[in-house]
């Protein structure tokens, strides 16, 4: 009996230690966001690096594009429209119903900042050049128009890897979206 009491005591002690070690390993100290691992940074970098390819080439009516978002992810576009969930976001990427164009490039994204948040997630932002040709060719060359934007993101770690929880694409010169803690205040989905 005494033996089992000892075993039970040791077990309880060890379980307590497991909890302490697990908490420490998660880095969940109050007031300090848990550090993202190197793998997390790389996964988030790659999520953002992949982003323009399905958007510019439109291989499957927006489905590959939407897969970059969490199931309940939100995309907020520069016209102040909100799209929530894969079906709506796929629609957003395919509004003009353009055919697949595997070599098309249009969104040139750079200066990607990634920051951890208190809830174990991450936020980030980047700059984007949207470049298109204008005017007639002159000596085989055409002038270019560059529109510069920023993206503001909330990333979420899902069983399928890091995804966009929210990606917002405010109009140039517009005020940044309001934030409540780690989440922006999302207005109800509305489309003209």
């Amino acid at each position, binding site marked *: 009996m005494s033996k089992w009491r000892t*075993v039970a005591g040791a077990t309880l002690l*060890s379980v307590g230690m*497991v909890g302490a070690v*697990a908490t420490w*390993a998660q880095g969940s100290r109050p007031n300090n966001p848990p550090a993202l691992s*190197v793998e997390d940074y790389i996964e988030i970098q*790659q999520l953002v690096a992949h982003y323009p390819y399905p958007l510019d080439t439109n291989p499957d009516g927006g489905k590959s594009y939407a897969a970059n978002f969490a199931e309940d992810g939100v995309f907020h576009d520069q016209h102040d429209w909100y799209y929530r969930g894969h079906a709506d976001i796929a629609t957003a990427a395919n509004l003009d119903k353009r055919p697949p164009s595997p*070599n098309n490039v249009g969104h040139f994204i750079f200066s990607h900042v990634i920051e951890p948040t208190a809830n174990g997630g991450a936020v980030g932002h980047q700059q984007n050049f949207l470049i298109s040709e204008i005017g007639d060719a002159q000596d085989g060359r055409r002038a270019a128009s560059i529109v510069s934007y920023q993206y503001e993101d909330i990333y979420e770690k899902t069983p399928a890897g890091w995804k966009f929880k929210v990606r917002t694409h405010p109009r140039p010169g517009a005020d940044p979206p309001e934030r409540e803690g780690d989440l922006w205040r999302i207005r109800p989905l509305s489309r003209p």
Partner: protein
Amino acid sequence: MANRTKALIAATLVCGVVAIVVVRAQQKRVWSLGHLTPVDYIEIQQLVAHYPYALDRGTDHGRVYAALFTPDGVFQGNGKYAKGREELAKSADRGDDAPQNVGHFMMNHVIEPGANGGAVGKQYLLTISAFGPEVNGRRAVSIRKWHYEDIYEKTSEGWLFKSRTLIEKPEPPSPPAPPATPSR
């Protein structure tokens, strides 16, 4: 007493193993890069980051550029094809070094695991050149949009380009030009 001590040691060991398993399970990451390690990823990023400097500067008659490729590496695109370091160096030779020259602007670098322990990747490219008359010391620019498709190989010299293919965005029919892809 001996039995009690043994039981205590056994229970502690079991719980220790459980603790390690629990912590390792919590630390397990979703990792989409397969066999590539974070160090591989960073080395490939750096390989690609070095590329425009070597190309635009033409350092050492293009040899610095050529050294970014495997000995049998291939570059093709924009009407050019170069295989092996000699041809690659020649393609990047600018005569004199041009240490301040910049011309290739690259973004959106995707890296994915490839066959046989290798890696593949792709990247957007902008090339910018001035055209038209100068106005108040300034000239308009023409921007060409491209993307690269790469195969990387891990060698005794580190990660290198096995091949790099340059593909230009299809030129829109002219006139009239189609509307630009809506930004998302």
